[in-house]
């Protein structure tokens, strides 16, 4: 699966694939992006539906779509999820389910979430996260390139199999301690990567081991085939079997224009 679109300021490419052994229909990550007018710029989201929850793909899609369709960039976004939660419940309502499926659905679906807003006038970004989807900002300086930001997790050892996630039935749950917000500025040529947990952890681990893939991601990752080659390499070099989603944005200092490449 691959999708590419861009304002002439940002080159966005999305790469994704399901867990090995699963079908495309069983892929439970989601992503969305949208150019915005106020502020002029771009909103991007990735969400990772938890394996141990039901109807998690639907919830991940609703989270990602909700983010790119709103103007909220801070913690208040999570306080305005009632419509998405209602929609999730409505899609399940009246569906005949066996006892185990009904009980599991009663627990709700869960997903990790990362949203990114880029303001094209100020060349600044704001990111919002709950869980272990990660943003990495890398500049195009030096032979290996430099990691300027890894957010909300900075090291591969921080990833666990039980992160705190956003629930489709958790309106009353206090989320504030779990919400992470960060911001930064962009220079010409900077690369932003938004990744779900397994691929983010692996990229950080490769970086920590002195085998960074940033330059390859910047220059060579162009097609679904090249992404598949990276995944195949990763699977023999410590990449955990999971759904993978990687959104790559390369920023260019130039006026915003809604132009499809």
């Amino acid at each position, binding site marked *: 699966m691959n999708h590419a679109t861009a304002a002439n300021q940002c080159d966005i490419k999305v790469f994704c694939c399901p867990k090995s052994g699963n079908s495309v229909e069983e892929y439970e990550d989601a992503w969305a992006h949208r150019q915005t007018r106020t502020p002029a710029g771009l909103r991007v989201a990735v969400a990772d539906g938890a394996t141990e*929850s039901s109807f998690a793909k639907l919830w991940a899609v609703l989270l990602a779509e909700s983010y790119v369709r709103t103007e909220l960039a801070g913690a208040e976004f999570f306080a305005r999820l009632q419509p998405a939660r209602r929609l999730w419940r409505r899609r399940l309502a009246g569906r005949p389910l066996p006892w185990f499926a009904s*009980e*599991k659905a009663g627990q709700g679906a869960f997903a990790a979430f990362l949203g990114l807003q880029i303001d094209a006038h100020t060349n600044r970004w704001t990111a919002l996260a709950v869980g272990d989807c990660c943003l990495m900002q890398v500049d195009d300086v030096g032979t290996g390139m430099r990691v300027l930001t890894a957010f909300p997790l900075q090291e591969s050892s921080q990833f666990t199999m039980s992160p705190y996630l956003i629930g489709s*039935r958790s309106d009353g749950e206090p989320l504030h301690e779990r919400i992470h917000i960060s911001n930064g500025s962009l220079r010409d040529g900077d690369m932003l990567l938004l990744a779900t947990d397994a691929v983010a952890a692996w990229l950080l681990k490769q970086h920590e081991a002195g085998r960074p893939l940033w330059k390859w991601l910047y220059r060579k990752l162009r097609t679904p085939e090249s992404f598949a080659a990276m995944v195949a390499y990763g699977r023999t070099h410590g990449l955990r079997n999971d759904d993978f989603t990687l959104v790559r944005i390369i920023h260019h200092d130039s006026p915003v224009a809604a132009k499809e490449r």
Partner: protein
Amino acid sequence: MAYQAEISRKNPGCFLFLVDQSESMEDPFAGGDNGKKKAEELATILNKLLHNLCIRCAKSDSIYDYFHVGVLGYSDESCKPALGGELSGRSLVPISELAGKPLRIEERTKQSDDGAGGVMDQTVKFPVWFDPYWKGGTPMCAALKDATKLVETWCQEHPNGFPPIVINITDGEATDGDLVAEARKLTAVSGEDGSVLLFNIHLSSTAGPSIELPGNASKLPDQHAKALFEASSPLTPFMVARATELGLPAGENSRGFIFNAQPLHVIHFLDIGTRPANVRLR
């Protein structure tokens, strides 16, 4: 490194429960305050474990066969498959089949999140696979021997899979031999990913504080508990980490042994993918 195999539908895990159905299970259970017999407590624990395993594997409107599950009951000088109804006589069944064929499904009321910040009464299905039963002696060694044969076959058929986990629920009084010696034979069975793991859940008539995943036998109250501790496998590093995450007092030397406590966390010691930290375990 051992105990790293991924559990998937293609490469499922195996839980084999051994349940004590001897006459001594009629005695009162000291770990509760409601005068339950040990056999009743055992049935409650087993039904909850099977229930939770099914819920773990439920995925949208279906259930994924991440695990195969068996129950062997031992009593009255013999050991035999203890699932009833349509599963009668079966030693190991895929979790989807287990979920679809309980003995009966009862309806109970529980309070739950209404999805809008409130609480509501909800009728839930409560499947029952296993009813209390007790008779005769405690042929635990025979059960361990039968379990050894079953897991040998499993390991031959799934050589690269995560090793089977055998969970023995008993009051600890074997009447047919040296349970520690039989346990050693069971846990000597291995595949590419490591040896079979044996956990023991001790339901005792001896009063005392519950003990979960101890690293040594010093605080165990009697020789039966100490023998069961001795027979129990050490937890893998992942299991220690998961147990700690779940709030259990696990350490580097912890063994899969629980004394007079509900062992419901045990089925979460195997990884089948991201588990939300904010889902409460029942």
